[in-house]
């Protein structure tokens, strides 16, 4: 091997060895614990109305909806406002990533997904509350809200727990 190639290889090895990278945000224990607690409260609410609930009973649940929506909104804010690693922010601007992840409208779309998942959680809880208040909840409607919720919260929980390196 020519000497220049050897020196180049050694130089690259040194650069590689000297650099660690961060492509996604750091683990946030308070966020994970908050999600666990709020999830338990939400599942308890779903269980309370799983056989259906008329609009006349909405007053019994009003405070629980407000608490849950407020809690999840605070967690969504916390996730949305955390620091995105500089390298991840730069990668989000690469064309293929930008196109797939819709990075122009949501710059952190693929490197900080939980705010989007929690946004869907909030949409479900708000629509369920409004429907409960105006029409009451049929049994199958509760099931539909719950499955929608389960899919979205599972995304946030999986991603946030995975961030624990």
């Amino acid at each position, binding site marked *: 091997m020519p000497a220049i190639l050897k020196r180049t290889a050694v130089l690259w090895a040194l650069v590689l*060895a000297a*650099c*660690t990278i961060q492509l996604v945000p750091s683990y946030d224990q308070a966020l994970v614990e908050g999600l666990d607690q709020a999830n338990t409260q939400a599942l308890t609410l779903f269980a309370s109305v799983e056989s259906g609930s008329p609009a006349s009973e909405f007053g019994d649940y009003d405070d629980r909806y407000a608490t849950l929506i407020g809690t999840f909104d605070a967690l969504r804010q916390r996730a949305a406002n955390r620091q995105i690693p500089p390298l991840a922010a730069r*990668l989000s601007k690469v064309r293929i*990533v930008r196109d797939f992840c819709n990075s122009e409208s949501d710059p952190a779309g693929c490197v900080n997904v939980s705010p989007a998942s929690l946004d*869907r959680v909030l949409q479900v809880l708000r629509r369920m509350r409004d429907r409960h208040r105006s029409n009451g909840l049929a049994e*199958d*409607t509760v099931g539909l809200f719950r499955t929608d919720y389960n899919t979205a919260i599972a*995304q946030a929980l999986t991603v946030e727990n*995975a961030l624990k390196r």
Partner: protein
Amino acid sequence: MDHQQIFSDMAAALKGELGEGYSTIRNFVESQGKLLAKQAEDIAKSRLNGSLKDDDELFQFFLDGLQTNAENMAKSIVMLSALTIEKAWNAVAGVLWGGIRTILSGAGVPAGLLPQTPPLHV
């Protein structure tokens, strides 16, 4: 420590991180696939014979939810993949730096000039 040992340790570190990352992503895809399939099935059933039969507004809400959840699942897979790449890179860099550190220490470079972990973080 020779270069063969360093390469062997790097390969082991890479294999470990990639294997763990693949397992996490595979489990996530399987569980999300089941949830999305149940979501679609429940919407279809309710539209045929349930409370969504005459409720176009709520039907549309749940269809939008199906699409949003599917898109967020795809983005979550990208994020979990990025995490796997990050961990694999750092594991390899850690092993390589450890090897170089050992060689340089053996060559008489003072330990104070050689930090335990790779000195650059980007």
